[in-house]
């Protein structure tokens, strides 16, 4: 049993999905608890794997006992073990927080929602653990299909159309990736990541390999929403149901960043990517443009959901720029930011979910006075907002530190300026919302000095489960921030240094 955790972590939500689908016919009320159990199994496995990896290093697991390169291998190393914990925890906490949202938004479809949700998580976890390129494609598509379905369950007017547009782009992205894998297969004859990595140096000069890399890269970029390939993102995330949004937005794009880093460091290798290809300046520039574009477009939004979606576009720019800057600090920053951004975005979407559940409206201008009626939710928002701006001791500051340091070390001044600029714009974004929420609308009794004691606000908070989830994530933001030193030193740095030596 001990050795099978890599498989268990993917199987647990998968089996739960089938069980839930079956139970949907029998009695709908069983669906939710079984889903929780499935996700709990994933969390438990990820924790176990974490300790195993910290003790004994990389775990290589052969599915069905078939050795690579014929068999599919699952590899857990320092890079993905933290992400496994992140994904499974976020999925579980979100499920806990979403019980009431699901009832509110799609009461009849609860069983279906749980099934597809579990499939989505299965796909994500699979993408994280797999060590086989084609297996990655399959799991990627499982994830994407589940996300298409989840996103379409929202606003019946606009969600199906937004999801359909996402389908087109998603298919193009995945197909590009598949094409890249095909080229690699032709050139190396293998699909296992490590196998390909060992075979590539001998043929690294060939055009086919560079084209393979570019195809894979562009495919992953489409999936992660890097500007200018991000056009599906705002619409898809704006019209989705709250519970789905909360799990897709923080996780999907970040796992795609993981795939990119995996391709860069493990499959193609540091030397090939940075020294032979020599495109990094362009890509760092692209990342910087993505940051600025995302920030500016977020500024232009009047709806909180769309604003958060564009903030995601901006954050993706951070990670792409950081990964491509080419030094250890930048890469560490990018990897740390995957974790941090997952947490921050999750916190923000939890807040959004609370607001939608209680008030039903998300236009920023309509949020006045909710600091008084939803103080805990807004406290969570302030915390997450501080993380986005990059204020210590929240985690956002620490990854920004590494990214800035990497940019300064590499002399990528455009990237550094973009980072500082986006921090300032994030400050404007966050405080615009905070200000509106803190001050009541103009029609209120205008405060004169003193004598203000009569302003009673009705406390109209979200239910306890939602608040508790937000609280856990909020504490997580600070905890990950303060302990980012140990996280970096013990987990991320070994991987990055090994990958970039």
């Amino acid at each position: 049993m001990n050795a099978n955790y890599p498989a268990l972590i993917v199987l647990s939500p998968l089996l739960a999905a089938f069980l839930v689908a079956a139970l949907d016919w029998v009695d709908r009320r069983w669906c939710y608890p079984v889903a929780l159990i499935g996700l709990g199994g994933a969390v438990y496995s990820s924790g176990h794997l974490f300790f195993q990896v910290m003790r004994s290093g990389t775990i290589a697991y052969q599915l069905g006992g078939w050795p690579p390169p014929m068999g599919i291998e699952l590899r857990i190393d320092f890079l993905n073990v933290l992400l496994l914990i992140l994904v499974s925890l976020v999925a579980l906490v979100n499920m806990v927080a979403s019980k009431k949202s699901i009832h509110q938004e799609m009461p009849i479809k609860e069983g279906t929602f749980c099934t597809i949700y579990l499939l989505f998580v299965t796909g994500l976890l699979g993408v994280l653990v797999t060590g086989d390129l084609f297996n990655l494609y399959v799991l990627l598509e499982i994830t994407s299909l589940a996300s298409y379905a989840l996103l379409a369950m929202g606003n019946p007017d606009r969600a199906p159309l937004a999801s359909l547009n996402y389908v087109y782009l998603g298919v193009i992205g995945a197909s590009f990736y598949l094409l890249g894998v095909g080229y690699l297969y032709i050139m190396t004859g293998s699909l296992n990541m490590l196998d390909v990595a060992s075979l590539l140096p001998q043929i690294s000069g060939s055009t086919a390999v560079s084209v393979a890399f570019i195809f894979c890269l562009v495919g992953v970029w489409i999936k992660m929403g890097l500007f200018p390939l991000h056009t599906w993102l705002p619409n898809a995330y704006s019209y989705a149901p709250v519970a789905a949004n909360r799990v897709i937005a923080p996780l999907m794009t970040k796992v795609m960043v993981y795939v990119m880093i995996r391709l860069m460091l493990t499959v193609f290798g540091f030397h090939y990517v940075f020294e032979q290809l020599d495109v990094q300046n362009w890509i760092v520039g692209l990342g910087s443009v993505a940051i600025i574009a995302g920030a500016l477009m977020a500024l232009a939004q009047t709806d909180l959901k769309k604003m958060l979606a564009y903030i995601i576009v901006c954050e993706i720019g951070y990670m792409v720029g950081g990964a491509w800057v080419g030094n250890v600090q930048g890469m560490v920053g990018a990897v740390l930011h995957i974790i941090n951004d997952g947490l921050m975005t999750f916190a923000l979407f939890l807040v959004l979910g609370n607001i939608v559940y209680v008030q039903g409206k998300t236009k920023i201008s309509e949020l006045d006075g909710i600091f008084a009626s939803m103080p805990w939710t807004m406290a969570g928002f302030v915390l997450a907002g501080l993380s986005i701006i990059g204020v210590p001791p929240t985690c956002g500051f620490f990854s920004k530190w590494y990214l800035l340091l990497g940019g300064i070390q590499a002399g990528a001044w455009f990237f550094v300026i973009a980072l500082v600029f986006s921090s300032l714009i994030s400050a404007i974004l966050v405080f615009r919302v905070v200000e509106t929420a803190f001050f009541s609308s103009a029609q209120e009794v205008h405060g004169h000095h003193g004598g203000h004691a009569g302003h009673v606000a009705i406390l109209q908070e979200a239910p306890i489960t939602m608040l508790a989830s937000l609280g856990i994530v909020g504490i997580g933001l600070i905890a990950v921030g303060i302990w980012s030193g140990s996280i970096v030193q013990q987990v991320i740095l070994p991987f990055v240094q090994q990958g970039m030596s």
Partner: protein
Amino acid sequence: MDPIVSLRPLFAVLVSMLVIPILLSSGKRPNVRESWTFAAGFIKFGLVVSMLPAVLQGREFVYTLATPFPGVPIQLQVDPLGMLFALVASFLWIFTSMYSIGYMRGLDEHGQTRFSAFFALALSSTIGVAFSANLFTLYLFYEILSLATYPLVTHHQDQEARISGRKYLTFILGTSVGLVLPAMMVCYHLAGTLDFSPAGILAGQAPTPVLVTLFFLFVFGFAKAGIMPFHSWLPAAMVAPTPVSALLHAVAVVKVGVFSIVRVSTGIFGVDLLKNLSIGPVLATVASVTIVLGSLIALSQDELKRRLAFSTISQLSYIILGIALLSPKGMLGGIIHIAMHAFGKITLFFCAGAIMVATGKKYVSQLSGLGRTMPVTFFAFFIGALSVIGLPPTGGFYSKWNLLVGTVESDQLIFMGVLLISSFLNAVYFLPIVFKGFFVPGPKNAQGKGGIQEAPLFCLVPLVVTALVSVLLFFNPDVFTNLTHLALGQ
């Protein structure tokens, strides 16, 4: 000597933060709430004072919280300079708490629980800044302070507060994120560490233009110091209730800004490096511009709090000027002014608030004849004014004297002129208030009741105490002088 590793700095910082949950839950029982605030204040002051003897002997207290980055721990260190600032802040907090009870209850303000909670948080961060051992920890607490004071500044939650709050954040957060953060990163990149060291960490690490730019990024980045042109937030923040203005903006927030600049100058750059870079005269000029302009604008302000705000802007740059002189007496004067100005200015703000509570008047032009009805307040105002102008028998004279000697020492007599002009202007905008209060009769239909009608006791006691301390400091500034001498290594 080896530093003492002790939890006392940590508790000194945290004690007011730990009280916050209790404060928040005792919202319905104001007396419980206020007593906890007092308790926290006394404990904090007690902790700070308990470390004073050892610091005066030249020892330091150190405590490391965590190490997020290699070479950059979150570390607290109690050294003479930090002790000076912490003493002032923690002492004055006790009296400001007393004052705010009188003020807020006198005006029946709303949201007092939220007020005291954020006040406590602001104090924690101020002590945190005072006890920071490196630039990163300082930045951490600096940002927490900015955020903790926003709800305090915008306490009234009306349109005016909203605009001022926005201005406040734009200036303070914008400069700290946009200027200080990149500068800090470049420092780390150049020196590999951010610890405050006696000779600085940047000597010889980069070419002169880079270092000079870096220095001015810091100077303008710490906008809390009110150096023009990033000063507009200070008068705008006067919409806050007076206790906020008193402690935070005359003592804590602005002093944090100046303190940070002093720390960066002495601990990151080092006096010798600054001399080599010839930054002194440039910085002194920048400071002088703020000094003179601040005083001139103060003359034109009719609202009392705004006049005091511009006076603060001007006085803060005295401290910067002291550092810029780079001479022993000049730096002594500048650093001691942190304490002297604090006591003097807080007295003035307390008086302004007392006048507000007792009579509802905010404008200088309305203050004629009030000296008859509020003699204690106006006399305290007189003392505070003397301290700020820099006349004996108040502590302000002591710091100003050192500054003047410092200009002679470093052979920069033009700045002596600046100081003298500014003192003259200070007199022009403060003394007439006192004069009018005592000697000009008030409007005919004013408080016909005659007799003395002072502000509530809780407001009066603090302002009397701080005025007394201002006088006391003239006769016995030793505590602060010794700390400063130790800090400057003299």
